[in-house]
């Protein structure tokens, strides 16, 4: 019997990249999972949490927990920082609220980032995807440092036919997004993003793959403003192409 996954699409993918959302569903299905989409989901609360507004963050986290509680099975999140928010930061958010802490920790225990779920739980690395061209990979901060997920997306990319994988110099350096940081400190964020773009250029790849929609929006926003040809894409967009 195939695993049914509860997809938490995340607010950025939902609103900005619905096509990527569809690719995620297709890839999960191709990997042998059944995809369920709990309808009441909105945002995990990370923007408010990072802004320091914990009361608002708690409300959004409760909304998210409530939205997923009726649906059993693993929760799959196609964005590293949102997965990290649920897995690690909900405990901080509800530290003083035993009842909600327990509900949050139940959700945390069944939450996986997309690439982590494909490789570690479904045991898939080759999805039969094809990509003609040169790819590189940006390690998103929360995914890499908070969740320790790195080998999984790399394994998935290694399984893409015809793709030429090149290493991104300083792949684990932050791209400068940081959620509200990028609008509170645009000058610093911009300087960090410029380094990332320089490294993408140095890699020689035309496409930089990431597992976090925040990084993708940030890197692409900079690439477009600078009239560069390279693009950041979600890993599902690559894995979806057969």
């Amino acid at each position: 019997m195939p695993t049914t996954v509860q997809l938490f699409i995340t607010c950025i993918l939902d609103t900005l990249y619905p096509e990527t959302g569809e690719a995620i569903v297709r890839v999960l299905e191709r990997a042998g999972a059944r995809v369920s989409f709990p309808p009441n989901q909105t945002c995990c609360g990370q923007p408010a949490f990072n802004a320091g507004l914990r009361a608002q963050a708690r409300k959004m986290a409760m909304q998210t927990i409530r939205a997923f509680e009726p649906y059993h099975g693993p929760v799959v999140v196609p964005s590293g920082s949102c997965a990290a928010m649920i897995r690690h930061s909900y405990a901080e958010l509800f530290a003083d609220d035993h009842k909600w802490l327990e509900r949050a920790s139940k959700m945390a225990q069944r939450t996986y980032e997309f690439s982590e779920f494909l490789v570690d739980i479904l045991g898939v690395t080759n999805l039969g995807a094809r990509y003609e061209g040169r790819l590189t990979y940006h390690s998103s901060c929360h995914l890499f440092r908070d969740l320790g997920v790195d080998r999984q997306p790399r394994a998935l990319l290694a399984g893409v036919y015809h793709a030429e994988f090149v290493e991104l110099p300083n792949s684990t350096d932050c791209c400068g997004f940081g959620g509200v940081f990028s609008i509170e400190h645009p000058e610093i964020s911009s300087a960090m993003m410029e380094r990332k773009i320089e490294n993408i250029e140095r890699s020689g790849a035309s496409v930089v793959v990431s597992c976090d929609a925040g990084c993708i929006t940030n890197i692409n926003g900079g690439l477009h403003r600078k009239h560069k040809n390279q693009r950041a894409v979600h890993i599902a967009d690559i894995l979806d192409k057969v």
Partner: protein
Amino acid sequence: MVDAFHSRIKTSLADANLQLALDANAEKRIKVRQAAFESLPNPKQLRTRAHNVREDVIEHLDVYLETFITRAHENGVIVHRAADANQAVNIVMEIAFQKGAKLIAKSKTMVSEEIRLNPALEEHGFQVIETDLGEYIVQLRGEAPSHIITPAVHLRRQDVGKLFEEKLGLPYTEDISVMTNAARSTLRQVFLDADIGISGVNFGVAETGTLCVVTNEGNGRMVTTVPRTHIALMGIERIVPTMDDLALMLSLLPRSATGQKLSVYTSLLTSPRREDDPDGPQERHIIMVDNGRNEVRGSELSEILFCIRCGACLNACPVFREIGGHAYVGRDGTGSTYQGPVGSVVSPALFGQCEYGHLARASSLCGACKEACPVEIDLPKLLLRVRAGIGVQAPRVLAKPNTPKLLKIGVEIFSVAATSPKRFAVAQRLAGLFGSAATFLSKGDPWIHLPAFSGWGYSKDFPRPAAKPFHARYNARVNPEADEEHKLIPHSDASAISSPKIDDENLLTKFTVELEALGGKFYVCSTNEVWHKILEILQAHDIKEIMSWDAVTLPDRLLEKLNEAGIQVIFPTSENIRANNHIRAGLTGASGAIAESGSILILGGAGQPLTASLLPEIHIALLRGKDVLLQLSQVLQMGKIKQAPAAILISGPSRTADIEMTLTIGVHGPGELHVICMNDE
């Protein structure tokens, strides 16, 4: 908006010179730290242990402090406690007045920066001179340090060349060794003339009352050895319970700070000069500074007190790399004593959320700081607490976030939408309409060019919100049956951590390799031949005078033989130090050695002047082959260390990398280290 902070950020980003300096710092420091950790068999385990030790200390600080103070008192050290900055300054001032001091020589102490000691002393007519090369440079420039470990990291060699030309009259040079030499000779006189030496403290060992001070240049040894009075300033949190814990911390601190296995000089100071001792300070004071720390202990920011001030989080931080240490300023523009990720928590915790809380907002929360921290402080978690207003003044329930007003309104609106699926759908539809309108206006461009004041639009375009979000698209698909029983497959658990095997063969070979890698020289000979080996070294340098330990501490008739060969041997004491400052070589005996780091252990005490291994350009140390041990922890367990007034671990010749991180050998301590190993088997 915090104007002072913002304008400092902009200034830093526009300063090309600073950017070059910061880039070089980040690239070099991260690499050397990683390389240094590779030489540890089990870094992860050590860091977790260190975290647990620090956690225990902060939790039971009262008990450890009492033990430490009792032991230090028994050792003859005068212990003072200062509740705040004013008290600490006043205690120093009282001692200085009482001693009739004029000149005060300081080695690095961030606590003294924190309590603003220098301006207070200067106001009362004392001359205060910083002796760490980096500190000396920033003092000459009238600046504060821009980094807790490398104070002049914001400068390049040209800046220092110009500064020394202007202030020291040194002809302009870009040769770092020439600049270092100029500082050496100016500061040597300061050490000799100073009435008081002030140092910081890296760790205080509770079980023995020992102070541990690490330096590379030798200035830390100078100010704690040469002046008649030594005052150590110590944050109350800098305690470790035992010598074993100290060994653990020392395995992490220099590696994290400068990529060294051990700093060149690790001073373990136990007592002041005793009756039979030839040198050392007559009086040793410790001022235990609280200045808000006890309050932080009881708050949800207490983890920040685990910090051992290695500076690794500054070097790893991408924000620090862009803006540098001087950009970290309080609301009123006052520089934050502590910078980078750790400073963005310490400063709000110790000196007020209102004044410094905004620093915690200048972080992308990328976690590079946490990853670099040798005591595993969860810095992103603490930064987020500061943002939420959780800290010393506010327990959780009363927390007042320091979110800027406009952002707060924005997030509040977003949260209203995101707490109801219906409202969220409406908001998405509105965003989609906005996106379509924007696309129409921009003739089909799927990117929105937001104005700079929006923050995002400063340097980035924004993708057009989809006319039909994923939610709507998904609902158009066939809804699969939800809710089935499924077992979760658990995460594969981490493989068991294997403990390293210690290879205790060839200790001497290992020691030799490490010592030589540090730039030290190594010789093996029989005890009878030692005098000849020494003579060869002296003759090669055309040296006819040597300051030496007492004959009874050295092999039989050694000094006699040197004398017969025409070498004049002088026994240095605090009293004759000025007259003997010109002597170029010093002879001592090592009581032990550490193979792992190529370090030798030199003990002070009767017949064993500390200055013989410190003042001359060339230090010759005699070592018995059987005294070489593998690890630091074994050496620190030697009873002799606790009995000696001061014990110094020396790892190579004195060095600095304070200018452009360029390694320069021979600063205040000897520039050459010769270890002669007597192997009579």
